[in-house]
């Protein structure tokens, strides 16, 4: 499995443990594709409001594409609104739809029906992926910023669960159509994101195994926040010999050795991610203690493009 596979898919789910930077990865992927002239939409799930922060733009509208950068759109999936739209498309008689969404009984149903919010969310994503205009796809790329691992996997599995649960009827047919697209290895790819730390990596490995066992197309892993390597073993040997009499020089050597140690651990985690998931992880560098904005997304998009062609990003010294 090689990295470029991810770049050929049309529907990309970005999945990973909380805090690994899924939104940043989704935004960087979207930026890379939009810059290459593709028409891209990034779908965010469950009111995250992250995209407007990252791109320093106005709020992303609910259930309507909002332009974030040239050719790049954000789409915030609103479950209540999507449920209503979904019912409207099936029931077709507007007063009946209104009656339904206004009734307390329906809201209780929506809250109690297992998997309904997830199904509706996934249905919206599916609509984006299959939308056509004048016989051509509306979107070249649909990037989904998923909820944290457990919830993200639940979101992906929901179509299969529902088509199993409902023996017949429109819901089942719909769920089945969605499942086909979500599991379509040619069109869909799941990118599992980790950070170079023990727990995010082990969670990524577990997620890859779970998803593959369930026949989901795991297309890539992405290691986000790799510290660019500044020191090598031969440096460490020199630094270890630094005379400790000069406190300033000793402190400097200590800091450099710490950085080397840290980088070594990060690379161990990178290897673990690679072997544990049988992938060649794409690497996104740590940009230091700065908030991520449009300029940083540009750098990360370049890094992803570069990583697509090589195993490791250009070394910054």
């Amino acid at each position, binding site marked *: 499995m090689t990295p470029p596979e991810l770049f050929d898919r049309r529907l990309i789910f970005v999945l990973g443990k909380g805090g690994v930077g899924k939104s940043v990865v989704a935004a960087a992927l979207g930026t890379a594709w939009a810059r290459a002239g593709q028409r891209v939409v990034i779908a965010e*799930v469950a009111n995250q409001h992250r995209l407007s922060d990252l791109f320093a733009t106005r709020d992303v509208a609910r259930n309507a594409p909002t332009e974030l950068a040239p050719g790049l759109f954000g789409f915030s999936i609103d479950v209540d609104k999507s449920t209503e739209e979904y019912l409207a498309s*099936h029931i077709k008689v507007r007063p009946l739809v209104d009656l*339904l969404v206004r009734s307390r*009984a329906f809201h209780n149903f929506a809250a109690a029906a297992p998997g309904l919010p997830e199904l509706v969310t996934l249905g919206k994503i599916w609509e984006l992926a299959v939308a056509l205009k004048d016989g051509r796809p509306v979107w070249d790329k649909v990037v989904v910023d998923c909820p944290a691992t457990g919830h993200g996997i639940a979101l992906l599995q929901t179509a299969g669960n529902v088509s199993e649960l*409902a023996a017949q009827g*429109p819901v089942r047919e719909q769920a089945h159509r969605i499942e086909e697209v979500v599991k379509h290895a040619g069109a869909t790819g799941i990118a599992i994101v980790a950070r170079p730390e023990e727990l995010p990596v*082990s969670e990524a490995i577990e997620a890859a195994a779970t998803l593959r066992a369930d026949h989901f197309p795991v297309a890539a892993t992405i290691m986000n926040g790799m510290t660019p390597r500044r020191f090598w073993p031969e440096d460490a040997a020199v630094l270890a*010999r630094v005379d400790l009499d000069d406190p300033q020089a000793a402190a*400097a050597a200590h800091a450099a050795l710490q950085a080397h140690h840290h980088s070594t651990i990060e690379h161990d985690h990178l290897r673990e991610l690679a072997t544990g998931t049988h992938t060649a992880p794409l690497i996104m560098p740590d940009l230091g203690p700065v908030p991520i904005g449009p300029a940083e997304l540009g750098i990360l998009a370049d890094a992803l493009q570069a990583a697509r062609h090589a195993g490791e990003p250009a070394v910054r010294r």
Partner: protein
Amino acid sequence: MNISGLEGCRVIVCCGSGGVGKTTISAALGLALARNGSKVAVVTIDPARRLASALGLSALGDEPRQVDIGPTGSWGELWALQLDAKATFDRLVQRHAPSADAAERILDNRIYAHLSGAVAGSQEYMAVERLNELTHDLRFDQIVLDTPPAQNALDFLDAPTRITHFIEGKSLRMLLSPGAAAGHLGWKVLHAGSSTVFSILERVTGAQLLRDLGEFLAAFDGMYSGFSERAEAVRTLLHSPRAAFVVVSSADDEPVREAGALVERLTHDRFPIGAAVMNRIRPLPATEPPTREGLMAVLADAGARDPADLADRTLAQLEHDRARALRDHESCARLARLLGGRQPLQVPDFPDEPVEISGLGHVADALSG
């Protein structure tokens, strides 16, 4: 701010956004309290086996297991468990169903199988139920709860309300349960409004799914008030002085912002905030950086082949470390402002991740001040 304020608390809830080290802090907090002589149960609610690895255990069960925290002396006990939402749900059904027969009907229901096994939603419901069970377990003085990895760290707080809404769906049960609500007369006696809603819904879901759902909800008859009462009991406990919320953050921009939102929400809803923890803080350098020439000379003495190059990279590293430490410092100040001037507890960034009990000990030391 220190953990002494947490000593008399029955329940301590650790919350914060994903990836800030909430699970580690929960475990370390449990360890710190146990060292103070308390019998502590730490509950984690996470599909990944994070607490297990943090505690050096290969697998945690739904039942509390005692953790070996070394030579104890006057120390208390540390117990750990991982929430198994399905096991908790099953146990609940077996314990509270009106009859063994009714319990079996629920456990065999297809809707139940999906609902109880689902990650989304079910975890938050069951966290509340499990917490309720543990507050009645006299083996423990204190319970430390790690919250579920939700999109929104506040979701957990809404769980009791959602349970109550879910189970109070009386109109829905009227709508869906063929016998129980309508006295075995079937659908026809339901009043007009509901049956219209039903027939519209049926056009979308198919009749069978609705029938399954109706049977599922009917099977729960007689258990509804129990759900409601337990959720209310937990809610009351979480609002009382016997509970404390601990807001955990890392120094990154997004988690601090989320911690701020959390503090605001907890304050607004009058949940007691016991402490805030800023995790993985890097210290400001104790000395000024050396001069480039001075460093080059030292590195040349140490045998560097290209002292200028290594000196430049080392100085760049120092500058990087300083910028990060300054940012961390500023994040602490930001969180303190959000807390109305109370200082967060600071846990340093340890070079090696605290995934063993000894590593947790260092974090516990930092928390104890």
